[in-house]
C-alpha cells in the first residue's frame, strides 16, 4: 500500500485558485483531497493515481459552521468539529448524531463532511443524513457560478454525485427550521462506530397538536448506497408519538427497499436492524421535535 508517483501537489488558498489549478489538467488528472480518510486508501491501493493532488486544507471559505440562518456547514469542516458543535438546531441533529460516530477519533479529527458526501461511499453515514434532512449542496462550477443542488438530485449511485470533475463542493446547508422539527440518525456496524451495516435517518415536522405533517426517511448500508425511502416518510404522516404506530412505518420501509445478504449480514438481519434502529430514531426525532422551539 504505497501511492504511485504524484507529479504535483498544490495547496491553494481560495476557491478561485482551485478552479485555476483544475483548468490546467485534463479531466480526471487532478484530484481534490479534503480529509483524505477514504481518498488516501484509494490512492495507496492505486485505485486512484492522481497526476496532481489539490489539497483543500487552507481554503478558509470551505471551513466552519454557521447557524445564523438555518445551518451551513463548510465542505472542509471536520467530523470532530461537527460532533463538538452543540448549537446545531434539533431539526438537523441527525448530522451531529452521524458525525459523532464516524470511524474513530483519529478519523474524526481529519475526515470532512464534504469529502464524505463527494466520495459517496456505498456504506457511509453522511450522504444518508444529508438526504434524510434534505440538505442543499452548494457547488462552485468551472465558470465561477455557484449552483445549489438538493440532496435528492446530488447523490446518484455509490461513488457518483452531481458534483463534476471540474466543480467544487462549497458547503451543505439547511433552511431555518419551520415549526417543530427534529431529526435523528443511528447505525449498527460490526464494531463500535464502524461502517453502517444499516443506518437509519428520520427527520420530521409536527403541527400544533404534535402530529407529524412532514417527514423524510433515509437509509444507509444497502447495496445501492445511501437512499431516501419515500414510503417511509409517507408512512410517518399523522404519527402522534404512539409507539404502536412505529411498526407499520418500519414495515413500509422494509417493503420498499431491497436488503442484500452479504458477508456482513443477511437480508433478514438487515430487516430486523431497520425495525430496531427505525423505532429508536423515530422516537428520538419525535422527542426532539416536541422539545423544539417553534
Amino acid at each position, binding site marked *: *500500500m504505497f501511492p504511485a508517483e*504524484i507529479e504535483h501537489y498544490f495547496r491553494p488558498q481560495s476557491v478561485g485558485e482551485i478552479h485555476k489549478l483544475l483548468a490546467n489538467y485534463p479531466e480526471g488528472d487532478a484530484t481534490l483531497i479534503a480529509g483524505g480518510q477514504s481518498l488516501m486508501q484509494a490512492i495507496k491501493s492505486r485505485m486512484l493515481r492522481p497526476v496532481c493532488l489539490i489539497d483543500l486544507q487552507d481554503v478558509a471559505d470551505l471551513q466552519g459552521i454557521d447557524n445564523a440562518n438555518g445551518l451551513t456547514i463548510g465542505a472542509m469542516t471536520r467530523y470532530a468539529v461537527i460532533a463538538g458543535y452543540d448549537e446545531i438546531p434539533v431539526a438537523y441533529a441527525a448530522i451531529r448524531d452521524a458525525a459523532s460516530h464516524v470511524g474513530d477519533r483519529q478519523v474524526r479529527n481529519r475526515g470532512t463532511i464534504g469529502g464524505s458526501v463527494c466520495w459517496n461511499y456505498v456504506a457511509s453515514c453522511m450522504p444518508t443524513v444529508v438526504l434524510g434532512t434534505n440538505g442543499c449542496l452548494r457547488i462552485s462550477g468551472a465558470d465561477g457560478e455557484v449552483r445549489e443542488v438538493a440532496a435528492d438530485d446530488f447523490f446518484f449511485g455509490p461513488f457518483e454525485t452531481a458534483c463534476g470533475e471540474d466543480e467544487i463542493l462549497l458547503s451543505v446547508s439547511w433552511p431555518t427550521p419551520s415549526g417543530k422539527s427534529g431529526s435523528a440518525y443511528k447505525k449498527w456496524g460490526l464494531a*463500535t462506530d464502524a461502517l453502517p451495516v444499516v443506518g437509519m435517518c428520520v427527520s420530521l415536522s409536527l403541527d400544533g397538536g404534535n402530529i407529524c405533517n412532514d417527514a423524510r426517511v433515509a437509509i444507509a448500508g444497502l447495496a445501492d448506497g445511501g437512499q431516501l425511502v419515500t414510503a417511509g416518510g409517507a408512512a410517518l404522516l399523522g404519527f402522534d408519538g404512539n409507539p404502536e404506530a412505529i411498526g407499520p412505518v418500519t414495515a413500509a420501509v422494509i417493503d420498499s427497499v431491497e436488503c442484500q445478504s452479504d458477508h456482513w449480514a443477511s437480508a433478514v438481519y438487515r430487516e430486523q436492524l431497520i425495525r430496531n434502529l427505525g423505532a429508536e430514531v423515530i422516537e428520538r426525532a419525535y422527542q426532539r421535535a416536541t422539545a423544539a422551539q417553534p
Partner: protein
Amino acid sequence: MSRTNEVSITVNGERYDETIPNRMLLVDFIREHIGLTGTHVGCTYEGACGACTVHLDGAAVKSCLMLAVQADGHDVTTVEGLANDDGLSPLQQAFNDQHGLQCGYCTAGILMNMTDFLREHPDPSEDEIRRALIGNLCRCTGYVHIVRAVKAAAAVGTK
C-alpha cells in the same frame, strides 16, 4: 519541482526543512526520513490499526492516512515527544505502573490517541475510554490494563 516538494515540518519541536517526494506518507517521513521509529506501522498502511497515530497540531491522526507534504507548515508530535526532562508523561507512567502493554507494538499509537483524548476529556468514564480506543488495535492485552492505565492517568491529571 516535479514529483517532489520542499516542506518545513516541525517534529517534537525540531524543524525539518526537506525536499521530499509528493507520494511519501507522513509515517514514512517520520520513520525513514528523520529516523524516529517509535511510530509504528501495524496494518501495512491500511489505516485500520492506529499504531501510527501521531499528533498533528495537537490532534491525534493516523500518519499512514496522510502524505508528508500535507503536514508542511504543521507541528507533529510523536511518541518520542511525550516524555520530557522530568521523565515520562503521566500517561506513559500509568502504562508502566498498570502493565498497560505486553508486546508494546500498539502502545505508541495508543499513548498518542489517549493523550489527545485526556486533554478533551480529563475525567472520562470507562465507556468513554473504550469508545475512544476504537481506532487502536491491541492484540495482546484485551484492553483491560490499557483502560486501567488511562483511568489512572486521568486521576493523576494529564499535565
